[in-house]
């Protein structure tokens, strides 16, 4: 067959039996455009999000400027929109949860690094962490309200505080449980990247497990682990349901760690449905602020991970 076509070419230098290839070039073109459009659509979504957030916050910012970020009293009916209590509480609760989670995440990471542990146990650990991460936020809130709060009440009565049960501490505890999986898994992944030779050399020089892990492996994996922590912090900042169910919904600075307070996300959940005009614009502005704070932590975390991986 090929012999008979020798020398006879059609358009574009393509032999007739393979003319279908030309059609497929336009097919490629169409397909490529579809792929490009889909990719662009993703960017359009986030772009539209940001535009909506900025446009809807504008009325509030135009009227109050950025004063809301430093004023202390949130009292919409008296036209007072001070968001400082919520910003402070949001960051406070998230950082406390992060700090509490450190020993747990690091322990899990160290454990998965040791060679003396069977693969099955390590798998059990990883699977358990995945499942903890999979539990929906509202169930954490539910559990926090019914299982944790009563215990907090007993503790508070013993220590002489009013037995709120709900409050900053309860929210921190629930949040800690929720963010451990993320920081633990990133810490584990980062530690796996630490070269085995380093570990072996350390043992060969006579160091024990404690010294090898804490003084050799940890410093090397430091930036990656920090990144993991920053990403968990980002996650904690935006957590809504679990927090709003156990934080007590008190729109002022918490008087102590056992008292109630409110985060930005929880405030929005409480008040958005009934807000309109400047009040609604103010809540959207706070949502934007929350997003931006989260962005900063996530961005820094991702940057550190990239640097780690490149090394």
């Amino acid at each position, binding site marked *: 067959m090929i012999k008979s076509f020798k020398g006879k070419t059609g358009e574009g230098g393509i032999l007739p039996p393979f003319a279908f290839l030309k059609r497929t070039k336009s097919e490629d073109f169409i397909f490529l455009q579809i792929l490009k459009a889909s990719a662009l659509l993703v960017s359009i979504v986030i772009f539209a999000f940001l535009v909506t957030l900025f446009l809807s916050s504008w009325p509030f910012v135009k009227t109050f400027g950025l004063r809301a970020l430093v004023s202390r*009293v*949130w*009292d*919409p*009916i*008296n036209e*007072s929109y001070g968001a400082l209590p919520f910003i402070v509480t949001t960051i406070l609760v998230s950082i406390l949860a992060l700090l509490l989670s450190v020993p747990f995440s690091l322990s899990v990471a160290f454990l998965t690094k040791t060679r003396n542990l069977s693969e099955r146990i390590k798998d059990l650990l990883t699977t358990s962490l995945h499942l903890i991460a999979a539990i929906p936020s509202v169930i954490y809130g539910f559990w926090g309200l019914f299982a944790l*709060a*009563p215990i907090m*009440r007993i503790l508070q*009565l013993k220590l002489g*505080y*009013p*037995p*709120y*049960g*709900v*409050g900053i501490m309860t929210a921190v505890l629930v949040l800690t449980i929720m963010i451990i999986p993320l920081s633990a898994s990133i810490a584990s992944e980062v530690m796996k990247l630490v070269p085995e030779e380093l570990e072996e050399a350390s043992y060969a020089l006579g160091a024990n497990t404690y010294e090898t892990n804490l003084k050799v492996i940890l410093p090397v994996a430091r930036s990656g682990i920090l990144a993991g922590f920053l990403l968990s912090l980002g996650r904690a900042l935006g957590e809504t349901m679990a927090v709003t169910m156990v934080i*007590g*919904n*008190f*729109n*002022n600075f918490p008087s102590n760690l056992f008292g*109630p307070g409110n985060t930005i996300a929880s405030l929005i959940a*409480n*008040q958005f*449905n*009934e*807000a*309109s*005009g400047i009040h609604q614009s103010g809540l959207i502005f706070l949502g934007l602020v929350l997003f931006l704070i989260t962005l900063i932590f996530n961005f820094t975390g991702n940057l550190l991970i990239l640097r780690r991986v490149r090394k």
Partner: protein
Amino acid sequence: MVKKLLLGTLLLVLTGLAGAQGVELTGAGATFPYPLYSKMFDVYYQTTGVKVNYQAIGSGGGIQQLIAKTVDFAGSDAPMTPEEESKAGSEVLHIPTCLGAVVVTFNLKGINELKLTPDIIADMYLGNIKYWNDPRIQKINPDIKLPKLPVTPVYRSDGSGTTFVFSDYLTKADIKWAEKIGRGKTLNWPKGVGGKGNAGVAALVNQIEGAVGYVELAYAKQNNMAVALIKNKKGNFVKPDIESISKAADVKIPEHLKVSITDTENPEGYPISSFTWILVYKDLSYLKDKKKAQELYKLLYWMTHEGQHYTKELDYAPLPQSVVKIIEKNLTTLTFEGKKLQ
């Protein structure tokens, strides 16, 4: 496999869209009457087949969603403010559906009844009275041994008509409160914890020893919670129940039906009683479907007539006849696309 799944879902979606034959009404707002409304709408569905989806997101939420026209009607224990009415654009009818009471409930072991006065209540919420065995409380309750337990005020975290009624009363009855806090659906509470909806407040009071909260009577009754007797304007300590609520409504009712009956002059009236309203635009064109408008009218008529049978068993007081007459007149002014519904 994926194809089958997609096909199945498509079929389901189409069926769902097609099945939208029966009229469904969507409402949102007050949690104050929610025990009554959920019973009423359940019965209404059983008898007429019309589904009424009412979400109790608080009076503030109801009013805002009505203004945004994302719901067909709103429920509120607070009449719309002038700002809200101007935002709404066109006239909104306030249709009372029942009478209820905002009770002061508390969690003290072994104590089922307590006498309280408005200034004491105000001071508990303002943080001036820190312990239950405060001499002011003890003085008016000489027979009760009050514990030295911290007072934990519980309030509403969402925009609430119940808060409005409660604060409306305290504004009238206590000068300190009027100056410091005032009346409104969302207030700047100086102390305590917030719960979502009447339900959330009741739940928190139940869980926290030494808590004091304000909820609608039905919630306190349903959960066997202790209720305070409150000293009314005439100096009598009145227990909230159907009679004392009805007596408080013994006032001149204006045509627009937006009347506050707190701090009643009636010597046997409970001082924190209130109407609760369903809000609809007078011009129902925003419902886009004439049938829907007619069903809404029928629902409102039923709620204010046959529906009243269900009030007493849930500890709400029925509407006085004088009010029902005005409602009937106001309902006839409902229009759809320029023409009267009737």
